[in-house]
């Protein structure tokens, strides 16, 4: 166990899985010598060579499709899109091919591929390089969706994703690459679809994902001063969604705030809020509240971008509005 960054944790997961299983390989733009746009694949090209760490042309359909076809042929590709925003040119291979193949073929194949994609705003990259698109992926039967917040979760979930026999969309928030925390040196897995309670509390449940987990924890500390004990639930995966953990928490706290960076309208929080309104309405002492980005593209200018991204204050405000 030692202190590692989220980026190092991901890198270690890739390295260990590639050492363990020679069917695991990496493909994507600039993932080789360059080490990936954000550095996640650094050193892997040197260790495993160009046959297992493949730089691709800038053709995302071919990347996702090649990973899908190779997975159906028995390999375990880990594909990287440089930004999740580029899924638009390759969505078909993900949702009509990878996700549906097993079902359409009557169970005749597995598609053990992982698709890593950095998400999120915060670096001034503007409207086409800053999005959070997880709600699209949640709506695709056949996929799994992981969205880790901590270095520990990042490593364990990535290893699980690689070993999973289904296509797993693995969403990394680019602002989290530098976040650090305790991460075991050895290989370990975290069950895909299992939430984690990042902070216990009895007064309100805050379900938060990715870097909003940190905002939620910050909010919780501040709320403590006002005598409000918030429970912070990190689903860690959005598909499958760990309904039980969320419901259990809401049944204890009787109040729910959902926080994510994705656009709020029809965003990932809509499902969580709707699910609770269906299954635990009688436990709610106040309306459900969602904290998400406003309904506009991500703006470039830093002050506007900061205003755009939800933060701890927005969460605090949401919690206080419940009273």
């Amino acid at each position: 166990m030692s202190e590692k960054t989220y980026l190092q944790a991901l890198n270690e997961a890739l390295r260990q899985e590639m050492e363990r299983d020679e069917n695991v390989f990496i493909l994507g733009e600039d993932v080789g010598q360059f080490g990936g746009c954000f550095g996640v694949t650094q050193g892997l090209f040197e260790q495993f060579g160009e046959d297992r760490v493949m730089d691709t042309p800038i053709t995302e359909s071919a990347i996702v499709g090649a990973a899908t076809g190779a997975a159906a042929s028995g390999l375990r590709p880990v594909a990287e899109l440089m930004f999740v925003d580029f899924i638009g040119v390759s969505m078909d291979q993900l949702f009509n091919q990878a996700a549906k193949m097993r079902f359409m073929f009557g169970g005749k194949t597995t598609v053990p591929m992982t698709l890593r994609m950095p998400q999120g705003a915060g670096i001034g990259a503007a409207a086409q390089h800053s999005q959070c698109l997880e709600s699209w992926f949640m709506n695709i039967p056949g996929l799994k969706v992981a969205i880790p917040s901590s270095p520990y979760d990042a490593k364990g979930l990535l290893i699980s994703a690689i070993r999973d026999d289904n296509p797993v969309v693995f969403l990394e928030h680019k602002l989290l690459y530098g976040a650090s925390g305790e991460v075991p040196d050895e290989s370990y897995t975290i069950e895909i679809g299992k939430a984690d309670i990042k902070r216990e509390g009895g007064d309100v449940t805050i379900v938060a994902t990715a870097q909003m987990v940190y905002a939620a924890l910050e909010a919780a500390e501040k709320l403590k001063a006002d005598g409000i004990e918030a429970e912070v639930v990190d689903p860690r995966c959005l598909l499958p969604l760990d309904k039980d953990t969320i419901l259990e928490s809401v049944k204890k706290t009787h109040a729910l705030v959902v926080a994510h960076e994705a656009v709020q309208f029809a965003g990932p929080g809509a499902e969580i809020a709707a699910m609770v309104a269906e299954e635990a309405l009688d436990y709610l002492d106040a309306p459900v509240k969602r904290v998400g980005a406003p309904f506009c593209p991500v703006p470039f200018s830093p002050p506007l971008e900061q205003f755009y991204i939800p933060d701890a204050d927005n969460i605090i405000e949401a919690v206080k509005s419940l009273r």
Partner: protein
Amino acid sequence: MALSKKTLIHMYETMNRIRLFEQKLQEFFAAGEIPGFVHLYLGEEAVATGACSTLTDADMITSTHRGHGHLLAKGGDLKLMMAEIFGRATGYCKGKGGSMHIADLDLGILGANGIVGGGGPLAVGAALAAKYRKSEDVAICFFGDGASNQGTTQESLNMASAWKLPLVFVNENNGYGISCPQCKSMAVVDIADRAAAYDMPGVVVDGNDVLAVHEAVEEAVKRARRGEGPSLIECKTYRWRGHFEGDACTYRCTEELEEWMAKDPIPRFEAKLIESKTLTKKEAEKIKKRIAKAVDEAVDFAKESPMPPASALMDDVYA
């Protein structure tokens, strides 16, 4: 004809198997017994047959919406296919896929595909896997003239050539993408000319001549097995029926159809076989009868099979 008698007869059988299978589908679709879309391959049998006759079970193919011919040529089981197209629980996909999604991984069939151009990237993946494993296996990607314009197809041609993958792109140029004639969807006349854009060999063959198809694909397959990379073979052919069953086909003229029907690949091949004494007229009739019987049995199998139960709906969404 340097091919063995066994191979030649097998090709002849395959073409007839496709023909009779599809004529049955035409009949049952008209009778309202087949649900959904059915895209018939009638008239194009020589392409799939010639191309797949170069492959082993370990080689992979990706197919299209017009996939029955490819699947049968790659060894697809008549009964399992028929049952699937009839939507039965005993079909290849347990009734969940239908005509456009039949697959048999054991035979190297990575699926028909409802998305035009959808198979290209998957074929790249299959070829990549073959290369990754340092095997001598190859993959064939079947795609239409319409599909050749799709970005996914062109990305696949590029990636396969950049990576020297063991992949053969077999273009079935039947002159139309639904109602759109080739001349309206692209400015080039020969799709094979596009191979140069990826520095790979491009060859035009008569797609109604099964031996010509075989020969061209065979060379490309050998090249691929030697690790020299992909090729593009354009097979000029024609579909006899509408785009899908039910299409009145008003966008084509009768003369064009008649001209192509006169080039029916089966009698052409049969005549050659008889001429070369590989086959007698009588043997040919016997083969056709045997296949007709097998097709009928497949229909019986399909019709006697149960529909999938509601309880099966959520199976196989996840592994």
